[in-house]
């Protein structure tokens, strides 16, 4: 309970910088996500950062600022379940990029919340496309442990991290094997041994193994693993191959309290029933359909739909696709699942389920669904008004509210656009146009 209260506080404090405001969004088609049936001509009222009313016959409170959503669609803000937003200004400019610590002496204890820059250009670029929340993850550099990821909002604020140390990141597939010393067993040995040592940090011996590799853990790292061990913090484990997924599920026989979230899972459809039975959720790239590694041979765009049909909780993320800059594209990822459902022999998702995969499901997976993921009274006021179907690639948000505050639909990109729109002979260089 203390944790929940702290999160709630962070949600509020970190976003609502301006005065409290009451906003009523009226006349739109409201997709609450809580209910698959949309509310036509619905009203959403947001006050002091929270949603206070949603429905067809909701009175607009006196003094409320009204946003006319007639002919438009209203949804919760989108929640991207795997990104690196705020960790890099330019991917290939190493000094601006805090995603992977290649030469650190620490691993599991690394905490990305130190690096998240609320003023990074990708944050504004992402929010104006309707993505208001994101999982921000580090990537492992030298160890199978990547460190502790955070949950952020995309508000125009000085602090956007609303849940630091929200999960631990671990790689156990092909890449994990490489990091672990060259094989999958090496990766598992590192992971399992570190968890065992974390059970009793005071007795752990922090000595080098004598090989070429540095000690693979230290006191800080082991301490960071304790909440993972006791199930207080989930662990996001990146694996793709069906066989690897089964091995990960089997880890709970040794560590029964692990809260496992599987990332990648390109062959998850092959073991969908086992994932469902184990109640382990997945975060996937819904577009993955190429055998581009030996651990992803079974890739198909039917993956998301097949796993969901088996009862697996599926959320969508932007891993390995420029996760620092393109988190906004998760809407296109979801939209394609609707398309996949229309392919003969294809399994996709219904429109409502696809929306859930980028709203409620990420919130559930990371334990913040009490506050986020749907449009319901009491939830945080992340609301997006769309010019049309949010999955229509030619439509866009007309209004974005994050924690009850409407943000300007402006970014460095829109400023460049406006500067160069209608380029022709100028009376002054364009540098004077802003």
């Amino acid at each position: 309970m203390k944790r929940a209260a702290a999160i709630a506080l962070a949600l509020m404090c970190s976003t609502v910088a301006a005065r409290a405001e009451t906003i009523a969004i009226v006349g739109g088609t409201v997709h609450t996500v809580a209910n698959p049936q949309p509310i036509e001509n619905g009203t959403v009222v947001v006050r002091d950062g929270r949603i206070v009313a949603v429905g067809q016959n909701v009175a607009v409170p006196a003094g409320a600022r009204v946003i006319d959503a007639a002919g438009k669609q209203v949804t919760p803000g989108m929640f991207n379940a795997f990104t690196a937003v705020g960790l890099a200004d330019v991917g290939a400019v190493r000094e601006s990029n805090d995603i992977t610590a290649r030469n650190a002496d620490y691993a599991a204890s690394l905490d990305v919340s130190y690096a998240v820059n609320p003023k990074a250009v990708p944050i504004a670029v992402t929010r104006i496309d309707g993505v208001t929340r994101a999982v921000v993850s580090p990537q492992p550099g030298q160890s199978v442990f990547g460190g502790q990821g955070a949950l952020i909002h995309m508000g125009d604020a000085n602090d956007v991290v609303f849940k630091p140390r929200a999960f631990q990141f671990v790689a156990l597939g092909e890449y994990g094997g490489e990091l672990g010393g060259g094989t999958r067993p090496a990766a598992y040995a590192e992971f399992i041994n570190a968890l065992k040592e974390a059970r009793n940090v005071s007795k752990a011996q922090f000595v080098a193994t004598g090989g070429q590799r540095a000690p693979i853990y230290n006191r800080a790292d082991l301490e960071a693993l304790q909440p993972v061990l006791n199930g207080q913090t989930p662990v996001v484990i990146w694996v793709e191959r069906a066989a690897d997924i089964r091995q990960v599920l089997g880890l709970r026989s040794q560590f029964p309290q692990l809260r496992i979230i599987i990332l990648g899972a390109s062959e998850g459809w092959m073991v969908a029933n086992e994932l469902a039975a184990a109640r382990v959720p997945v975060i996937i790239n819904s577009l993955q359909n190429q055998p581009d590694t030996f651990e992803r041979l079974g890739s198909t765009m039917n993956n998301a739909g097949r796993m969901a049909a088996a009862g697996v909780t599926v959320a969508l993320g932007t891993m390995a696709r420029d996760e620092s800059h393109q988190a906004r594209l998760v809407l296109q990822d979801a939209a394609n699942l609707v398309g996949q459902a229309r392919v003969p022999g294809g399994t996709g998702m219904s429109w409502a389920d696809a929306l859930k995969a980028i709203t409620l499901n990420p919130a559930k997976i990371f334990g913040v669904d009490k506050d986020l993921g749907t449009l319901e009274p009491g939830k945080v006021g992340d609301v997006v008004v769309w010019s049309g179907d949010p999955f229509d690639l030619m439509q866009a948000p007309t209004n974005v509210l994050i924690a009850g505050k409407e943000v300007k639909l402006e970014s460095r990109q829109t400023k460049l656009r406006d500067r160069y729109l209608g380029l022709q002979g100028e009376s002054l260089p364009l540098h004077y146009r802003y």
Partner: protein
Amino acid sequence: MKHILLCMSALLALSACATTGSSGGGQGSGSSTGAASKAGNGASLTKTSVVRIDPNPYPSTYQPYPGAPTLIRGATILDGKGGQIENGEILLRDGKIVAVGQTVEAPGDAVVIDGRGKFVTPGVIDAHSHMGNYAAPGVQAHSDGNEVTGPVTAEVWAEHGVWPQDPQFTRALAAGVTTVHILPGSANLFGGRGVTLKTVPSRTMQGMKFPDAPYSVKMACGENPKRVYGGRNQPPGSRMGNFAGYRQTWARATEYKREWDDYTAKAEKGEKASAPKRDLELDTLMGVLNGEITVQHHCYRADEMANVIDMSKEFGYKVSAFHHGVEAYKIADLLAKENICAALWADWWGFKMEGYDGIKENIPFVHAAGGCAIVHSDDPNGVQRLNQEAAKALGAGNRAGLNISKAEAWKWLSLNPAKALKIDDKTGSLDAGKMADVVLWNGDPFSAYSRAEKVWVDGALLFDANNPKLRPVADFELGQPGEGDAK
């Protein structure tokens, strides 16, 4: 990260295989010749031949597969050149488009397809692909797209590294892509020679090769060459070095062309002359200077594109298209004036410094300035959704106040890339007489809900979403998980 690597290398391939012109005999490099008798210029009747460089030593063996005469009725037709016909009809026969219109006459034996609620377009053309050169699975052993052993490798040819069994080709076909231009990567100033392929499954590269499509040479600006070679403490280590490298190479190519031109002129007149020594690198560049090989130049920044344009005038060649051109919108007027296409992503940005200024309106701004805008992929996943990339760009452009129709925007996907590759006389629009490279979409192709339902290449139905038997499976995927699955 993978795409950064791909963008990194540009290879200019130069083809040069000399054969004797009149006899068609063996390699003739360097041998002296007399006048060909057919030159008919007088005294010498010595029966010798002029040494010429074979422009096509790895010729296409592609033959269109059989196709039934096919009539699609009731569809919304986007003709690829800006036109739209509601409830229209199109007839394909003998590999060609026969007629397109509100109604067309069809032979009695034509297969009739009900296109109501569906869309018909020309096949999508991707002007920038590395499929086959960076095949799936993406293991080091499949890394064949960058000859990173020197900054000027115009002598290598992308086609010699294409693995036709790359499963990625089948995904592209299923996504309505019928033609792809395979370019070397962008590590080098001159990366090598690019090749145009059809997405027809084949055992050999030659079996995919687009008949009579010109080669290209891939060049690369900016960060990649200077990083790759500067990091080894060898030139180029800066943008200055990049241009010095280009210009010195073009100067050598100019000299080489002069030698060949002088030799050929003399030899054709029957004067005694020795053929210049063959240089595969300069063969390709001479092909550019002769207007036979196109230039596809990877270049992100506006200022660098302007420098390249001046360089092309300095050495007397033409840039066919700038690729990636994240800042093309900043010089959309210049590109239109110079008649240079811009092959672009809809919304990639920020992954490298020279891509920091990307905007979603790049493609429509180039279009609105009267330029030749192209949606390209550079990516085996993006190639499957080029139509969706166009939709995002179109939506952004129109929100910015432009008024571009979907029919106009389809130029970005077929006719404009065809122009950049100089195959627009053969494909790229639904015109009678052109190759029947045609896609039937199960809905509006500007929607993520739609997919290619049927894909014809030269009139042959090579993908049909309704028929699992028309779902190609590469050798690599046989006996592997997911073989034959709907992807």
